[in-house]
């Protein structure tokens, strides 16, 4: 499962084995297209179905029915003819649909007629004072450990932030017997009013009753503080306490673990490096690719499905995966498309899955002071650049994220802007009184994940390649 790809050319290459990628690869293979699914993780599932084929959490109700849906997707994929490679890191994708992938320390190259990017989402940066301290992690990190290794917090644990995942994680930790001392809810009170006009669609979506019962389950066991307007972490080399302000009153509580979460945003690195056009989304406060109704991007042959296409959740991701794959089948083997679910049915499924999303996006829109830090708070974790450093650079002439690299190396560390990019864009936009769209984002390039020079040097070369660089 971790060998090199069997072929050099595929009809469809799908990148990412989360809900969208699993569905897309199975659909494409089912229609008879040669299909390769490349995924960076140890097994299928992406984040939401993390460790679906291997989780040690055997008590099914603890992870919830929504999690186990992933098992059916994996089963469909395995029943199909799709070739699947895990622990495969795609580090380059270009306009010619040439793909470079690192597998077991060696790079392989494949060419696709169609590429479906299903690289999903990552958690929005949560740049509070102390967010780099040992003992501060994302809620998603704790959930990953819970799903894949049945690990639960057992020290003094605080969960802070907002959004559906936060409540799901809290419920799962409690069901597995883990410890949570306090939940600090940072949802802005004004968001409740803003979200009200969108409430009807949400009330009639499946998320409503599930969400409500989960919040009840958690609130029965854990002290929840709402209306938190300030948050910071303190340490002695390791997290020792969390300080917060709610209702104008400051409290400091001792803590060994602080789990942060304020929603998820598309993981844009691979798509942007392939020159896919992205626009700033004013509601979801992130970069989203410009796509047609079938997920096709501005680059011919590259489609994007799942949360990488704009946050829609797991159910929507599955349908978007099927739509993108069907669209590829229609283009490459129109006769085979008859075997698949009709596009009209898929579009109805998608509308259903996306119901209530605007309500969630509005209600859980993170507040500016948790997105745009000030002073000594670290913005770029890799290069350890603070908000003040960024503002000082703006004051002496840095105009956007790419100029800022020359001043401060922001976004030039190993994470390549994944943990600072949104913060830098919004911080600079605010400082320069521009929109995030005007300020723009880092120019991303291959390799989108670090690989060693040795691995690059070992890449097979043609005589022409050698002649191009060797003298005499």
């Amino acid at each position, binding site marked *: 499962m971790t060998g090199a790809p069997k072929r050099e050319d595929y009809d469809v290459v799908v990148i990412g084995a989360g809900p969208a990628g699993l569905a897309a690869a199975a659909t494409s293979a089912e229609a008879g297209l040669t299909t390769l699914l490349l995924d960076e993780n140890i097994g299928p599932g992406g984040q939401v179905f993390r460790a679906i084929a291997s989780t040690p959490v055997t008590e099914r109700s603890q992870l919830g029915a929504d999690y186990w849906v992933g098992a059916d997707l994996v089963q469909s994929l395995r029943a199909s003819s799709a070739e699947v490679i895990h622990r495969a890191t795609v580090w380059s994708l270009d306009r010619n649909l040439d793909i470079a992938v690192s597998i077991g320390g060696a790079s392989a190259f494949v060419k696709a007629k169609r590429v479906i990017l299903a690289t999903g989402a990552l958690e929005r940066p949560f740049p509070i004072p102390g967010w780099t*301290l040992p003992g501060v992690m994302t809620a998603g*990190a704790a959930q990953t450990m819970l799903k894949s290794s049945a690990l*639960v917090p057992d020290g003094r644990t605080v969960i802070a932030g907002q959004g559906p995942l936060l409540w799901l994680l809290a419920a799962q930790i409690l069901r597995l017997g883990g410890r949570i001392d306090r939940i600090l809810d940072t949802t802005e009170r004004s968001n409740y009013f803003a979200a009200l006009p969108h409430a009807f669609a949400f009330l009639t979506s499946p998320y409503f009753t599930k969400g409500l019962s989960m919040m009840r389950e958690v609130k029965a066991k854990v002290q929840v503080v709402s209306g938190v307007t300030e948050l910071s972490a303190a340490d002695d080399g390791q997290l020792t306490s969390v300080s917060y302000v709610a209702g104008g009153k400051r409290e400091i509580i001792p803590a060994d673990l602080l789990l942060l979460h304020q929603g998820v945003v598309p993981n844009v690195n691979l798509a942007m490096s392939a020159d896919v056009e992205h626009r700033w989304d004013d509601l979801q406060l992130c970069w989203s690719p410009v796509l047609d109704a079938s997920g096709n991007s501005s680059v011919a042959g590259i489609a994007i499905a799942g949360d990488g296409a704009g946050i829609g959740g797991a159910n929507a991701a599955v349908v978007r995966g099927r739509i993108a794959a069907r669209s590829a089948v229609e283009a490459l083997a129109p006769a085979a498309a008859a075997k698949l679910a009709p596009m009209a049915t898929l579009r109805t499924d998608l509308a259903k899955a996306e119901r209530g999303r605007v309500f969630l996006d509005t209600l859980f829109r993170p507040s500016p002071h948790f997105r745009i830090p000030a002073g000594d708070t670290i913005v770029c974790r*890799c290069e350890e650049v603070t908000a003040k450093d960024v503002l000082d650079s703006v004051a002496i002439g840095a105009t956007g994220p790419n100029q800022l690299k020359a001043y401060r190396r922001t976004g030039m*560390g190993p994470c390549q802007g994944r*943990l600072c990019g949104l913060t830098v864009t919004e911080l600079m936009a605010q400082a320069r009184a521009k929109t995030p769209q005007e300020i723009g984002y880092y120019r991303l390039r291959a390799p989108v994940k670090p690989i060693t020079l040795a691995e690059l040097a070992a890449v097979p070369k043609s005589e022409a390649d050698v002649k191009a660089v060797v003298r005499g």
Partner: protein
Amino acid sequence: MFRRSEQDKRPQVQIFVDGVAVAARQGDTVSAALLASSRDVRRSTAVSGAPRLPYCMMGVCFDCLVTIDGVGNRQGCLVPVAEGMQVEIQKGKREIGR
């Protein structure tokens, strides 16, 4: 910080962390095994030497960088443990040649 749920019946895998034997479980990532070990597994950053632990556990933050079987700067959250694996907590930059 973390403990294992009793329902976890996966077989044990022995890895070595800075030369000391640590019991992991089959299917753990290196980072999960380190965080479950209750040892001090803080790395230090290449820029200021600040202590860090894994932050995202999903391959994007690079705060889990660790030396595995002599190779530095590996993302511990993406590598599964294997019997006898030698893990070193990385202090600062990756060293040339490893």
